[in-house]
């Protein structure tokens, strides 16, 4: 039977198991939206800005392990997606973005609402397509989903000209994907794995440094088994939080610029560093030449280009984190049994000493709310089980430091690109995927204003998203750098904001405010007790800094502690 391009698109989405898409209509996607309205199996969430559609798809993908989907029109609709796509690219999040395009006969003519979105997004997508013939549509979409979710995941964009969605053909839906030039390596080379294990077994001061790859490959169980069997202390990047339980004795906290003293010291002193699904980003390593100076490095990653990109690696292992950890655990079973708690005692004693002498902390104040206290209370009152999204800045770092993530896929944050305005739309996506769970956007007063329009999307769709604004009346993180490195010259960082309580009410959400420490808990309790979306406006200490801090370009041991 002949189907139009728009109909084929719907069939393809159904075949990929898509239940929700986030989007915004326009001229060249009219046919698609017309068809969408007749496709009851797919729910469309109408956002208020295309950037939000992409962040929502990103949050949805992280929480659900499914590919997130966004659908937008050509021109401005397409360009509005770029920030979201770039963020998903840097964080390796599987999403498919479908953009309408002007009809093929107008492409290249500077037609109304024409942009070369394939050209624009080439460097920030895993791959992208312009579909010029309706006969290629089904295969292209199947490839797009396959590429997005396989190997190192990432965003894929499919540009669909209006005449292609109108044209008809008898579609052939492929069952398999054959791309001769694309074949990610999942199974790690067993010889390399054995070499790595040997090195690890002989280590005196081993450290596991894990990243988003642990979360993306669902390998926290394998990590847990490996770390606990050999009693190796664990640290992770921002993206890796929740990959190892944040309340476990072997957990050292996050490493890097705002990592714990313990984690950074342990890496500086390690003799073997086992990097799993992490990429030695500059926010993690600080001054490269002094990063883990005593360590032999084992690096496990599915993306060969991540290995030896920033640091020289002694044992590179290309493969899926899960496969590799399973292999390591299996090999370990055949090794002679040793009392690892005993073997590891001196090293773990040292590590514990670092964490007890320099814990993550802040000075309590009776009169002013400390932002860290708000996050601690959120953790306590949700028993560490909430889905947390963050904005960017101090709020993001405090969320990472003081919410002890115990499960993977519970923290959604724009880690690589650091997009202010990510948190609210991402929370929307997470709540679509997890309708019965608590979803909280830990926000800053600056960031929340970047995509605040989505509050109405949340209200419209009865999503009980909670927004906790750590309102310091500053672009706090930038101000922190001015405070520390620019003699407190606060250029363009004092920030005004609307009355968030009234704003919440205007949108039809609940608005709550706390100005004193004793009001924090009641406000959170009230917010958690309602099924409605809530903004909690916490007026916090304006000049609080995120500590510890390794100043940019400095070595880890040069960190500022307070």
């Amino acid at each position, binding site marked *: 039977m002949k189907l139009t391009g728009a109909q084929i698109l719907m069939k393809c989405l159904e075949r990929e198991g898509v239940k929700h898409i986030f989007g915004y209509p326009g001229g060249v996607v009219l046919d698609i939206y017309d068809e969408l309205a007749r496709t009851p199996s797919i729910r469309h969430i109408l956002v208020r800005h295309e950037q939000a559609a992409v962040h929502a798809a990103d949050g949805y993908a992280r929480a659900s392990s499914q590919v997130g989907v966004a659908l937008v029109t050509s021109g401005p609709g397409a360009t509005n997606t770029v920030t979201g796509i770039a963020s998903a690219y840097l964080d390796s999040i599987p999403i498919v973005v479908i953009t309408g395009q002007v009809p093929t006969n107008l492409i290249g003519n500077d037609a109304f609402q024409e942009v070369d979105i394939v050209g624009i997004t*080439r*460097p920030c997508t895993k791959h992208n397509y312009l579909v010029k013939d309706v006969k290629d549509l089904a295969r292209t979409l199947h490839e797009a989903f396959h590429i997005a979710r396989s190997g190192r995941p990432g965003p894929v964009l499919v540009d669909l000209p209006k005449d292609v969605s109108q044209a008809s053909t008898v579609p052939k839906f492929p069952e398999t994907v054959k791309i001769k030039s694309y074949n990610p390596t999942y199974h790690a080379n067993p010889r390399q794995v054995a070499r790595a294990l040997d090195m690890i077994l002989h280590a005196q001061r081993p450290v596991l440094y894990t990243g988003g790859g642990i979360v993306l490959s669902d390998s926290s169980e394998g990590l847990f088994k490996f770390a606990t069997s050999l009693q190796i202390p664990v640290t992770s990047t921002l993206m890796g939080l929740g990959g190892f339980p944040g309340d476990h004795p072997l957990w050292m906290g996050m490493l890097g610029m705002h990592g714990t003293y313990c984690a950074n010291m342990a890496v500086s002193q390690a003799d073997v560093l086992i990097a799993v699904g992490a990429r030695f980003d500059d926010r993690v390593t600080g001054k490269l030449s002094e990063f883990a100076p005593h360590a032999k490095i084992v690096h496990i990653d599915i993306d060969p*280009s991540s290995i*030896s990109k920033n640091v020289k690696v002694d044992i590179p292992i290309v493969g899926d984190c899960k496969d590799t950890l399973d292999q390591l655990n299996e090999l370990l079973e055949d090794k002679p049994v040793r009392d690892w708690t005993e073997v590891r005692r001196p090293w773990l004693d040292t590590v514990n000493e670092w964490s007890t002498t320099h814990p993550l902390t802040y000075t309590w104040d009776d009169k002013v709310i400390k932002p860290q206290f708000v996050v601690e209370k959120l953790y306590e009152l949700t028993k560490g089980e909430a889905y947390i999204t963050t904005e960017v800045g101090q709020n993001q770092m405090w969320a990472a430091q003081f919410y002890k993530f115990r499960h993977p896929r519970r923290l959604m944050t724009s880690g690589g690109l650091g997009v202010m305005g990510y948190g609210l739309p991402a929370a929307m996506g997470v709540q679509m995927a997890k309708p019965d769970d608590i979803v909280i956007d830990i926000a800053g007063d600056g960031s929340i204003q970047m995509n605040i329009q989505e509050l109405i999307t949340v209200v419209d769709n009865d999503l009980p998203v909670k927004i906790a604004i750590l309102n310091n009346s500053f672009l706090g993180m930038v101000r922190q750098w001015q405070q520390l490195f620019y003699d407190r010259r606060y250029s363009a960082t004092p920030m005004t904001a609307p009355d968030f309580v009234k704003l919440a009410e205007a949108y039809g959400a609940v608005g709550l405010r706390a100005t004193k420490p004793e009001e924090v808990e009641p406000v959170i309790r009230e917010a958690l007790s309602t099924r409605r979306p809530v903004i909690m406006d916490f007026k916090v200490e304006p000049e609080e800094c995120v500590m510890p801090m390794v100043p940019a370009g400095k070595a880890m041991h040069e960190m500022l502690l307070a």
Partner: protein
Amino acid sequence: MDPKMEPRHTIAIWVDNTPGVLSRVTGLFSGRGFNIESLCVAETMDPEVSRITIVSTGDEQITEQIIKQLHKLINTIRVVDLSEQEHVEREMVLVRVKAEDKSRAEVLRIADIFRCRVVDVSASTYTLEITGNHDKIRAVLDLLKNHGIQEVARTGTLAIQRSKKE
């Protein structure tokens, strides 16, 4: 450091012969700050596959990254660093050089020594076709420079592996 001082690598890349692929490859070089000294591209015997030859400069780590990043492009089928193996390199250059009075004979002599072909002649110029590897081309151009080069067109380097000797 002067990029010219870093080792040159001749990299052969087989890619899907589809629109936009070349821009993916060159975009990768510019986006990541890799250097391109020359680039050639044309169809292979299989019309669905193109072969790109890129000469790039950079230390070992950069070259390793270039190759890995090229591999990562979905349309890349194969990448080989030919500099790592026995290979033959050729570039073709068309050069119009001033040749008046006594330098006419001298230019012809240079052309002869380096087995260049004269492809066009005027009263005051010769146009030569030079084929050879990087070093030879540089040597000829250096010599011709003394006579005054009016215009040069170069293909960029092409390269192929030598067959294995049994």
